[in-house]
């Protein structure tokens, strides 16, 4: 299981910072990498790194229950307890409230160990609408070799990570790389050592005759350091966005 979508090494490779790298560049690469990972997760509405999580839900739309993280690789357990109260009520989600997979609910899947939509379907045609009355433990996200576009077979890694033949999250990883490269260049261009004759900040005034402009300082200039997902990266991410998470 990874803590990051791509390793920092991939950002260094993309920037050509391999044989030699300065102390400043090392730090900026690390910062840019982290900023890019966060920006991508925010953009797609979930953390795509595969892991098992336990979450609480209430009914959203009849028989369908949209999970917050995709793609779903396996369901460990589903408990339904109208007195569950997010697991905080004494005796909540007791053994008797466990729903049986394949009988009381189904995971919508395209192939074994891969539910791209992240939806559970209730056999009773309705999930309870009491807040926090559904407790789901499940494994979701992409495997390391899927981020590399190298899942040519299916199996389970020694750490429990599930990978499926044909599942390719390479474009998602490439979007992180592209965003990190842009973030690095932004940080580098705005660094003090590169600041001679150039200063960050939004325009506060502009004159066309004898052209001149004034830049904001202080907090306004700091906004120039925020990292946006580049348009090309946003295009690559389109297939990975969990729009259903807006309901969950």
């Amino acid at each position, binding site marked *: 299981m990874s*803590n990051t979508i*791509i*390793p920092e090494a991939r950002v*260094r*490779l993309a920037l050509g*910072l*391999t044989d030699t790298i300065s102390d400043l560049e090392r730090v900026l690469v690390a910062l840019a990498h982290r900023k890019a990972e966060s920006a991508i997760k925010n953009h797609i509405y979930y953390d795509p790194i595969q892991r098992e999580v336990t979450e609480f839900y209430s009914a959203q739309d009849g028989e369908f229950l949209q999970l917050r993280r995709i793609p779903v690789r396996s369901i460990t357990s589903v408990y339904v307890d109208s007195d569950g109260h997010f697991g905080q009520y004494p005796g909540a989600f007791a053994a008797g409230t466990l729903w049986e997979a394949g009988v009381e609910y189904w995971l919508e899947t395209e192939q074994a160990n891969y539910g791209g939509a992240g939806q559970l379907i209730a056999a009773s045609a309705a999930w309870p609408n009491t807040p926090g009355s559904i407790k789901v433990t499940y494994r979701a996200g992409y495997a*390391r070799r899927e981020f590399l576009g*190298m899942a040519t077979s299916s199996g389970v890694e020694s750490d429990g990570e599930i990978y499926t033949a044909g599942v390719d999250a390479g474009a998602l990883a490439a979007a992180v790389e592209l965003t990190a490269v842009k973030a690095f260049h932004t940080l580098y261009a705005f660094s003090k050592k590169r600041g001679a004759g150039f200063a960050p900040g939004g325009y506060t005034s502009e004159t066309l005759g004898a052209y001149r402009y004034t830049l904001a300082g202080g907090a306004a200039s700091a906004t120039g350091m925020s990292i946006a997902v580049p348009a090309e990266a946003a295009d690559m991410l389109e297939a990975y966005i969990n729009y259903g998470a807006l309901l969950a």
Partner: protein
Amino acid sequence: MSLFVRVYRDRTAAFVVTITNDAGTTVTFNSGDNFRVKIGYAGQTPILDLESDAASSNGSSVGASNPSTIVLKEGDADLLTPGPYDIEASITDSDGIKAGDKGVLYVHDMMAGGVD
């Protein structure tokens, strides 16, 4: 100074790693020190954790000196899915890590089958 290593999946590789201090001087490796090389993703358990104190179960070894020759046997190289990895090298003694460096290791994909 930086680490940059390329290896090939399922193929034995040998490369030399030198650890220097901030001034660029090669760090002295003393008797009893342990030269360690970790390969994986930063922030998680390494996929390969090699050391000069003992060879890995697949026979990979780290030379007990600085510079150190690292021999990555094909059994260990096969544990790495092709792609980029973080590589970390350090010299440790009873007080902890004496010096370290971090860089890039890239694994190239190869055709199926070993080479005798």
